[in-house]
């Protein structure tokens, strides 16, 4: 990876969000496409209604359909491992729908200090210096199987949940920021300013470290992370969420058949976020 990893600050705009949709000419080019879309549309609407709460837009895109919501009294199970698959070829440069969706969902925003502001997810432009081919991809906590942030945490605040989601227990985080130093992905940020009016499902406060939670509050309800939903909503479908441990899940099937890669796989951390066509 080259380039400044803090390069593009979230701009909060959805510029270019609609650009990757098929153009008008393309859509009208063949009647068969239109007919197929009509069929898909009615079929998808039907399944969404029929299957009720478990079904979301994911059903249509052939993306991961995450497991049904766990009963609230059940703990997260180590039988699952949540992960993301990001298709770099479908992620257009200039679109930051995932970044703004994350910011909105979790209530983090800039305070005018771009070098230290919270940044749970950011867009990176990576360039191969030999061929000058560039790719734009989202970068967030990679939810490693062997997370270095957990290894170095002096209080045990940084931990990995049974289902593979790496989190900070802010109740016992002392804000030493050792995990920020240990993370090779620069995924974590520290809150410098006192905050008010946080969101009920995303508590965050001054003096603690935070990072992408894989929208754990949504995952526990059987929903997909906000970034994935936004990416589908923007018409790109570059992000897929699912259970890497379930061989029947769409994400596991793709990981088993496609050439996907983990960033800095040489470190042996086994990230749960995978990239294809990078």
């Amino acid at each position, binding site marked *: 990876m080259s380039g400044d990893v803090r390069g593009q600050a979230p701009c909060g705009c959805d510029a270019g969000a609609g650009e990757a949709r098929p153009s008008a000419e393309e859509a009208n080019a063949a009647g068969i496409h239109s007919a197929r879309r009509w069929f898909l549309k009615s079929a998808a609407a039907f399944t969404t209604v029929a299957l009720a709460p478990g079904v979301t837009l994911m059903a249509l895109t052939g993306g991961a359909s995450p497991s049904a919501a766990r009963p609230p009294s059940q703990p997260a199970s180590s039988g699952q491992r949540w992960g993301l698959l990001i298709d770099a070829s479908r992620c257009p440069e200039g679109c930051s729908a995932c970044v703004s969706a994350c910011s909105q969902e979790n209530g983090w925003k800039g305070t005018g200090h771009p070098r230290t502001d919270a940044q749970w997810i950011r867009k990176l432009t990576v360039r191969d210096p030999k061929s000058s081919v560039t790719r734009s991809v989202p970068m967030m906590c990679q939810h490693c199987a062997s997370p270095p942030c957990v290894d170095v945490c002096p209080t045990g605040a940084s931990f990995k949940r049974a289902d593979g989601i790496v989190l900070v227990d802010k109740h016992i985080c002392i804000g030493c920021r050792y995990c920020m130093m240990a993370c090779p992905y620069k995924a974590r940020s520290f809150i410098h300013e006192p905050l008010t009016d946080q969101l009920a499902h995303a*508590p965050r406060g001054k003096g603690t470290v935070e990072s992408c939670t894989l929208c754990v509050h949504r995952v526990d309800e059987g929903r997909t992370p906000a970034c994935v939903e936004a990416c589908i909503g923007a018409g790109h479908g570059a992000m897929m969420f699912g259970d890497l441990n379930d061989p029947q899940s769409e994400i596991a099937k793709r990981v088993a058949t496609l050439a996907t890669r983990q960033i800095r796989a040489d470190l042996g951390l086994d990230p749960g976020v995978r990239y294809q066509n990078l």
Partner: protein
Amino acid sequence: MCVRHLFAVLVVGLAAILGEASLAQDTKQVPTAGRTPVPLPAKGKGEQCVAPVEWMRRNHMTALEHQRDRTVREGIRTRQFSLKGCIECHAVPGANGRPVGVADARHFCRTCHDYAAVKLDCFECHASRPAEAAQRAGRIDVQKDVAELARYLEGLER
């Protein structure tokens, strides 16, 4: 000297009797703002609390602490001792109809914590008022999903 001593004993005795009386008034839970101020937390929604009120007064902090570890560490999100549940049930409406935050002295938690001079640090991170309807709308909503799906497909067709 002896008369003075007798007088002092009388004064102390009288004070003790008066004190006893006011204490008796307190234990009877008479919510009057008389000479002895008592905290008057607003009543929550519904018929009863998630546990007996007497028990909650003494043990809510322990219950919340255990629940917090279960939720953060294991993902158990039962409602009984969830802080979010407390906040939703015990919301105190402010002047504009919106529930007051912890900055307002009428906030349910603050009424007693101020009285007992116990610092409250939950709300440095947690929301001190219930989520607004717009926030809650982020929950599973089949109708909305279908509408979004239709809009997305319309976009493809166009």
